[in-house]
């Protein structure tokens, strides 16, 4: 168990380190950030001073080590636009994104679990067909468009829910549906095939033959085992929601990490973009790691 943990942690660290290399390299591709930070007619002396201050006159590997050293200490530099440390800004916006992602995740599970189980139990029935249609549609529409249509129907036409902002539970409903819509398809399919497999197993047949009520068989004995494959992939979906939040937050003006980074891209606020992307990557890697670890705890069969 300890070995699994150590190996997973090491892999995660290497991935994060690699991600920071990529982020560093790409952000240096643009050439001289100083040219973008100073006005066009800045005197050469000011340019040189800023280059020196940012360490841009040193060799590239030294710059990278400096970037890494600072990043490890939580220093991504000052946000040009917000006049505060980039990391502090990103961390300040993170809880709103986590709240949205959790709500979206809850929505997708609330839809996928019953749909998956029912379409396995009543295989080939109209429930199964509905599940199939939702799955196909869910993977064919961009999440921001789901958001726009939700705004059009529930905010503009019916005026039931607010279209943007973040002020209480009513505001999270539409963005959570938009963000949670995409993974419903895959989750339903995983639950369905898991259930079909379990329902076909000997112990379910045994339970049925000794007269165990069908409801108990499905929801107590089969469902719990069918959940396992979903758990393995749950981290991936939670992580993909952090990524999807970039778009959905922009649609709903949700004051989270995603919208902040998108705005920073337009404002050429590099420290915020770097900090935001690196924090997202770290969360992405960590949630995958957590799932790997929890999987070996939940399912004793795959423990080494």
């Amino acid at each position, binding site marked *: 168990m300890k070995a699994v943990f150590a190996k997973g942690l090491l892999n995660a660290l290497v991935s994060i380190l690699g*991600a920071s290399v990529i982020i560093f390299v790409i952000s240096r591709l643009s050439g001289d950030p100083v040219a973008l930070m100073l006005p066009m007619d800045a005197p050469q002396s000011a340019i040189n001073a800023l280059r020196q201050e940012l360490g841009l006159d040193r060799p590239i590997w030294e710059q990278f080590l400096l970037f890494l050293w600072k990043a490890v200490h939580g220093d991504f530099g000052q946000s040009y636009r917000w006049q505060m440390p980039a990391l502090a800004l990103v961390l300040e916006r993170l809880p709103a994104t986590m709240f949205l992602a959790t709500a979206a995740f809850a929505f997708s599970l609330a839809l996928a679990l019953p749909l998956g189980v029912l379409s396995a139990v009543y295989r080939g029935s109209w429930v199964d067909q509905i599940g199939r249609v939702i799955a196909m549609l869910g993977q064919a529409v*961009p999440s*921001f*468009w789901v958001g*726009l249509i939700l705004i059009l129907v529930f905010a503009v036409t019916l005026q039931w829910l607010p279209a943007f902002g973040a002020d209480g539970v009513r505001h999270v409903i539409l963005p959570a549906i938009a963000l949670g819509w995409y993974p419903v398809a895959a989750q339903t399919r995983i639950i369905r095939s898991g259930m079909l497999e379990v329902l076909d197993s000997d112990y379910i047949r045994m339970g049925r033959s000794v007269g165990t009520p069908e409801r108990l068989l499905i929801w107590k004995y089969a469902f719990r085992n069918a959940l396992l494959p979903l758990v393995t992939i749950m981290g991936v979906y939670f992580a993909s929601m952090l*990524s999807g939040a970039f*778009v959905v937050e922009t649609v709903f003006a949700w004051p989270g990490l995603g919208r902040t980074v998108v705005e920073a891209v337009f404002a050429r606020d590099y420290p915020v973009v770097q900090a935001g*992307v690196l924090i*997202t990557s770290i969360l992405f890697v960590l949630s995958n790691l957590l799932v790997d670890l929890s999987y070996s705890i939940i399912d004793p069969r795959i423990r080494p």
Partner: protein
Amino acid sequence: MSVIPASTPVTAAVGITPRPSLFRFRLKGVPWLPLLILLLIIVSAIGGESIPPQDPNGLNLAAAFRPPFWQAGGSYEYLLGTDNLGRDVLSRIIAGARVSAIVALYAIVFSGAIGTMLGIIAGYFGGIVDALIIRIAEIMMAIPSLALALIISASMAPGLSTVVVVIVLTYWTWYCRIIRSEILSLRERDYVSFAKIAGCGPLTIFFRHLLPNIFNTLLILMTLQVGQVILFEASLSFLGLGIQAPDTSWGLMLADARQYITYAWWGITMPGIVIMLTCLSSNLIGDWLRDLLDPKRRQL
């Protein structure tokens, strides 16, 4: 059980199942409607300027916010209505097909080629080469694709080439991992060993013995990628990081129409429906190809 048709090949009787190939499919179950929709998109992409009924970039403020033809105030001149600058929505959708097609073509060819090559190399040579390639792929996957897109867009000027670069950087890992695992089992086959003994170099083995065997998988992966590429391009363009005006794309149309959502519902509805139909079609065709060519992967 269905009755075995008289034309069943002799091989079936001997117990060797003939490998289903693209050229022997049955007409039953062919997704005609999705194929037709994709064909329409491709024709619009190739046809370019000659197909749209109106000039997709023609400004006509007098005709701004015309609703689709079936609503009061709409006309047959502008079938799906007009946007805030009086441009015909249908014509812009047709013009936007070209961008989607170009992005999908480049992105799929490049990410497919890079991913397949690296996958073959990793799977065939194994050892440290394999470890290195897989490690790089894992690192690329550690950065969420949209986050990667944001940081690239912050450094490069946004545009069609940025979109393609982002998609290639994101998707090559997908091909790489799947092709690698196929190669891992293929390289243990006898015919590969025989080829090696006969003195074939790695290149000959790649192109003559391995590539033909992963062709089916590649075809399926590429078809399924079409929908994802189109969604990705739409998201990037919607954020303003993808296609830039005066070019047009479906994502950009949605971004433009977003501000006028309260009085022009068709502006955000029509391009989205086209995106949906395109993705749905390519996904359905991909699923069909998978069932046809690779029954093992069929989902329950």
